[in-house]
C-alpha cells in the first residue's frame, strides 16, 4: 500500500465498490447469524442461570429478578444486570429466599459467585462459583474442598437490631479455627482465595440483605416492570 506507483492504480470507484460491498455482505452475515442464534443463546443463558440457582437453592420453583429502583425501593426488573439478584419462590408460591450474584477481586482475577440467602434461617444457605481464574490446585479448591463448601450450609447472616447491616461481619478464619456460625473455615494453602470470598460475600450481603429483608416480602410478583 505504501508503494502505489509500482502497481497499476485501481480506480477509486472499484475500491469503494469492494469495501462497501464486502462491508454489506459481512453485515448481512453477522445479522443473520445473530438473529438466528439469539433465541438459543438467551435460552441457554436462562437455563444456565436456572440450573445454578436450583443448585444453590434447590427448593426454588420460580424466580423474579429484582433491583433497587429510583426511590430506593426494591422492585421487579427485566433488565439483565451484570450482577443480578433474584427472589426465589417455592412450590407453594412462598418466598423461600433470595439468590444473589457477587463479584470481587480474588487471588489473580475477578471471582464471580452466586449465593442463596434464606429469609427463614437468616443465613447463607448455598454457594457456587460462577467464574474464577484462581490458581488450579490451590485457589480453585474453594470449588471442590468439602469442608469449605460445608461453610455455606448455614452461614449466619443475621442483621443487626436496626436492620441496616449484618450483625456479625462475615470473615474467613484459618482452617480448623471456625468458632462462630458467621465465620468461614478457610483452606490452608488457599488462604487468599478463601479470604477474598469472605470479603465478596460480606460486601454483597451487607449491601443487599437489609434491602431484601425490608422489601422482599412486599414485592409485587406480577408487576410488569
Amino acid at each position, binding site marked *: 500500500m505504501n508503494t502505489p506507483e509500482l502497481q497499476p492504480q485501481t480506480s477509486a470507484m472499484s475500491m469503494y465498490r469492494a469495501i462497501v460491498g464486502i462491508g454489506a455482505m*459481512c453485515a448481512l452475515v*453477522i*445479522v443473520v447469524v*445473530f438473529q438466528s442464534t439469539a433465541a438459543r443463546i438467551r435460552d441457554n443463558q436462562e437455563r444456565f442461570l436456572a440450573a445454578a440457582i436450583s443448585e444453590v437453592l434447590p427448593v426454588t420453583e420460580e424466580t423474579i429478578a429484582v433491583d433497587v429502583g429510583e426511590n430506593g425501593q426494591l422492585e421487579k426488573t427485566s433488565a439483565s444486570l*451484570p450482577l443480578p439478584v433474584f427472589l426465589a419462590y417455592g412450590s407453594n408460591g412462598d418466598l423461600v429466599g433470595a439468590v444473589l450474584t457477587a463479584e470481587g*477481586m480474588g*487471588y*489473580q*482475577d*475477578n471471582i464471580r459467585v452466586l449465593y442463596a440467602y434464606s429469609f427463614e434461617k437468616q443465613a447463607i444457605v448455598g454457594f457456587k462459583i460462577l467464574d474464577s481464574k484462581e*490458581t488450579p490446585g490451590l485457589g480453585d479448591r474453594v470449588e471442590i474442598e468439602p469442608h469449605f463448601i460445608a461453610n455455606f450450609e448455614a452461614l449466619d447472616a443475621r442483621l443487626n437490631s436496626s436492620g441496616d447491616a449484618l450483625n456479625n461481619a462475615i470473615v474467613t478464619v484459618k482452617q480448623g479455627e471456625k468458632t462462630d456460625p458467621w465465620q468461614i473455615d478457610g483452606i490452608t494453602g488457599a488462604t*487468599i482465595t478463601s479470604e*477474598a470470598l469472605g470479603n465478596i460475600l460480606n460486601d454483597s450481603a451487607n449491601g443487599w440483605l437489609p434491602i431484601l429483608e425490608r422489601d422482599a416480602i412486599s414485592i409485587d410478583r406480577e408487576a410488569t416492570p
Partner: protein
Amino acid sequence: MNDASHWSIFLNAALVNNFVLAYFLGICPFFGVSSKLETAVRMGGAVSFVMLVASVCAFLINLLLDAVNAPFLRIISYILVISSTVQLVEMLMKKLSPTTFRAMGIYLPLITTNCAILGLALFQTNRGYSFTQSVVYSLGAGIGFALALVLMAGVREKLELNEVPDLVKGTVAALVVAGILSMGFMGFAGLGR
C-alpha cells in the same frame, strides 16, 4: 462497573497476569522480535503505545455500540477502528516526529493485527473498566509486555552465544525460557490486591 483501584489494575496487567506470560497474548511478536535486545525494546515501546491508542479507541467504540445496542459488531469494529487509528497515528508521527517514526514506525503495521491489542480491548470491555481504568490497564499491559519482551531478549542473546543443542535452538529454547519466566512471574501472584 469495576471498582478495582488503579494501582491494582496496573500491577495486575503488568505482572500478575502478564499478557504474554499468563495470557499468551502477543506470542508471535514475542518470539519474533525477542532475539535482539534493541528490536525488543523498540517493539515493546511500539506495543505499549498502540495499546494505549487501542484502549482509548475501544472505550469510545464501546460507548457507541452500547448506545445503538449492537454488541455483535464489537469484534469487527474494534479491529477496523484500531487498525485505522494506528495507521493514522503512524502517518501523523511520520510528519511530526520522523525520529520516533524511524525508531518504532516499522513495527506499527505489524502490531495492529496482534492478539495482544485486540485482547486488551476485549478484556477491558469484559471487565467494565471506566475510562481512566482502561488507560491504566493499557499502560500496565504495555509495560508488562515490554518487560517480558526485554527479559526474553536478554536471555536469548545470551543463549545465542552458548552451545545450545541444535534441536533446541530457536523456538524450543524460546518456549522453555518463556515457560521458566512464566513460572518466575507466578511469584507476583497476589500483588496489588
